[in-house]
């Protein structure tokens, strides 16, 4: 029995993790990244597009780690924390025609002659949530798409919403202590059914900032990766009491297996989903301020003065941030951003300056709201063309955009 199980596991592992066969340095134009695991789908989708970006082919070679660890690595370049583990990359169309964000990426061995420091580091929240230090002069920060975070439960729960006050008690006091105080908050009454992340992870830090519970005081089982939280929810021994923290894009990929909770922030009259309804994918509430649990993604690259050390790394960052790039890619970067569950700056109408901080109104230089909504859900915007101009707004990508 054990041998059968071991054999099955061996086959499964061999299938899930292709054998390391190549050196990363031998891949076409490699750019090394260390990113939060919330950005995994972006790495796969954008990595795939960049492999086949004929104007400038690039191979994104990535490894995932906590946002605070990534910031520390980029800021301090401590040799002890250089990248030594096997890295991942997306295959080109010719290498694997069927590759999607659900596929297992290919693996490569990083160079070992000297500590490898990434060309690009990523934080999926404000850097100030990890360190009070400003970036060194050798690191440039670029604000990228916005990342939502959710509280999720296994499919089948009757619960639809959680308030910030409830979350404060559940995660700050813990169900065990609440029970002893006669104040259990149903259905989250089991200390062993709270699934959280470790304290360097953006998902925990973002929720900490939004419910007023310091990351180090969270009750629950700290897990290293988002897939661990998903697995814990899927295989919970008490699914009606199970709750976990996830990036919204992780939930989006598993909607048939998980339930997202609407969230009511402090001083808010009602609870809202990240999207306008529980079934839509438009991130409307995140974009207009009704859903408050989101962070900017921050993209760091090395600079010498104001000049990027690696121009292709900056090319990738500019693409992620929605800035114009030269040469123009043979795909639409903001469509890639939208399809992996992130929100480009041009679709946002609120902003903030610190993690969990107050929201203020925001208008981007140019709007892509209509295009974004059409990409992820349905757009109600007027369509336009050279022969059918907009009554109001600007015709862009076939839609009459506000700005």
């Amino acid at each position, binding site marked *: 029995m054990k041998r059968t199980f071991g054999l099955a596991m061996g086959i499964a592992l061999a299938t899930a993790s292709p054998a390391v066969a190549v050196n990363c340095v031998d891949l076409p134009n490699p750019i090394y990244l260390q990113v939060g695991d919330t950005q995994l789908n972006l790495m796969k989708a954008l990595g795939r597009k960049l492999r086949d970006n004929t104007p400038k082919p690039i191979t994104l070679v990535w490894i995932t780690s906590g946002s605070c660890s990534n910031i520390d690595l980029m800021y301090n370049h401590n040799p002890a924390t250089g990248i030594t583990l096997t890295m991942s990359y997306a295959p080109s169309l010719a290498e694997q025609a069927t590759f999607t964000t659900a596929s297992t990426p290919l693996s490569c061995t990083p160079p070992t002659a000297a500590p490898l420091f990434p060309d690009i580091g990523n934080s999926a929240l404000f850097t100030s949530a990890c360190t009070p230090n400003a970036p060194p002069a050798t690191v440039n920060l670029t604000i990228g798409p916005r990342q939502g975070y959710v509280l999720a439960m296994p499919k089948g729960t009757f619960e639809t919403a959680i308030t910030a006050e409830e979350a404060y008690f559940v995660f700050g006091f813990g169900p065990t202590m609440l029970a002893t105080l006669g104040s259990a908050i149903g259905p989250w009454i089991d200390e062993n059914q709270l699934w959280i992340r470790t304290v360097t992870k953006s998902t925990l830090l973002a929720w900490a900032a939004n419910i007023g519970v310091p990351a180090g005081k969270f009750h629950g089982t700290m897990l290293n990766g988002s897939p661990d939280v998903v697995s814990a929810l899927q295989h919970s021994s008490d699914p009606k009491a199970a709750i976990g923290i996830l990036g919204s894009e992780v939930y989006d990929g598993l909607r048939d297996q998980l339930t997202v909770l609407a969230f009511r922030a402090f001083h808010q009259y009602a609870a809202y989903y990240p999207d306008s*309804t529980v079934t839509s994918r438009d991130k409307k509430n995140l974009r207009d301020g009704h859903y408050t649990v989101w962070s900017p993604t921050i993209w760091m690259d090395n600079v010498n003065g104001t000049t990027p050390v690696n121009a292709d790394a900056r090319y990738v960052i500019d693409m992620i941030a929605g800035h114009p790039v030269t040469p123009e890619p043979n795909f639409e970067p903001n469509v890639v951003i939208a399809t992996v569950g992130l929100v480009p700056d041009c679709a946002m109408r609120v902003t903030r300056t610190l993690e969990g901080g107050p929201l203020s109104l925001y208008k981007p230089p140019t709007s892509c709201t209509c295009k974004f909504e059409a990409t992820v859900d349905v757009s109600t915007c007027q369509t336009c063309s050279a022969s059918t101009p907009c009554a109001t707004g600007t015709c862009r990508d076939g839609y009459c955009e506000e700005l």
Partner: protein
Amino acid sequence: MRAVIFAILVFAFAPACGDDGDTKKAAGVSDAGAPDASCFTDPMTHEEIINACTTAQTIYKHPTLPLLNADGSLPALPQ
């Protein structure tokens, strides 16, 4: 152990506010026994933005939380 009572759980699609010029209006869905929730048609501050009128799905939930301080504020976290 006292069970926590969720006083209200109204699940509705709240319509956007009207547009007759008032800044703060009834959201169209209220929870029994409590004042109508209000929304803002011309939000400027954080509190107005998060409570702006919207056509989005709105869920009203106002649980009774016995551990709140007398003034309704949150107690400090345990050490």
